[in-house]
């Protein structure tokens, strides 16, 4: 069990890293892009880049605010 937990922790740190919110925003961006494209019929190529940039700026703001 401990072994499994450390493998999970390793992969979490490897892919997600220090800020899970940035990763969550990327996933939200992909979901939004898919919904806009397939449901609303909008070719939303701009949605993911905008959310990725927002995720980066937000993450950097949170990491440095008050320091």
């Amino acid at each position, binding site marked *: 069990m401990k072994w499994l937990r450390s493998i999970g922790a390793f992969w979490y740190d490897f892919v997600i890293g220090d800020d899970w919110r940035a990763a969550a925003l990327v996933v939200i961006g*992909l979901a939004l892009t898919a919904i806009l494209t397939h449901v609303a019929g909008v070719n939303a190529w701009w949605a993911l880049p905008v959310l990725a940039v927002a995720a*980066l700026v937000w993450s950097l703001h949170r990491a440095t605010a008050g320091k």
Partner: protein
Amino acid sequence: MNALPLILTVFVACAVEAVEALTIVLAAGITREWRSTFQGGAVALVALAVITAAVGPAVSHLPLTALRLVVGALLAIFGLQWLRKAALRAAGYKALHDEASAYLREVTAAQQAGVQRRRGVGDWYAFTLAFKGVLLEGLEVVFIVITFGDNARNIGGAVIGAAAAIVVVAVAGVAVRAPLTKVPENWMKLAVGVMLTSFGTFWGAEGAGVTWPGNDAALLVLVPVIALVMAACILWLRARHAAGAAPAGTSEVIAR
């Protein structure tokens, strides 16, 4: 997709990881014992080859749309992580990755550990140190090679980029016989972060169903835009850091 951007991106990304692995291997070999160090490194390389052989073909059997969606998300998340660290380092919020001090840390720890013979290995500490270093840094190389290679449908190009990086770093390490401290790691990481985020965003959105204006040519806009955003973020963070570091009341004193 043109093979050159793929090969160059994989080359730079893998060179960064190879420099970090080299530091650990040198610390183990010079301080402890070369034979056990090489054994550890070799076993790690075999493990990496097994992982690549198992995961690589499995991933390439996925339908292209699903592959681009999943791998695009992973690359974008991974790339943002690199950009975040690189920006914090460039602005002074985080210490720069220093191969000289990393080497010194490993050497100090290696000198303090006792010698233990286990499973036919003369120095178990040197073996595990080299094994862990090569395996952990190598996993990132494998991740980049598989994701980039499969998505571009050019695993061969990705392997060439990675192999070239490992050979160049290994040759430089043998020639210098010291950690490669002159390599501008943070700027290389920043460049790789820009490429990972750009390609991840491009492929992820394609996997989600969009058609990019200009198709592959959209990358020629996406990469510079992400790079410009990063440059702006670093300038913003540097100004913020300087403002935070300035003693209270300094600006009023200067104004007077």
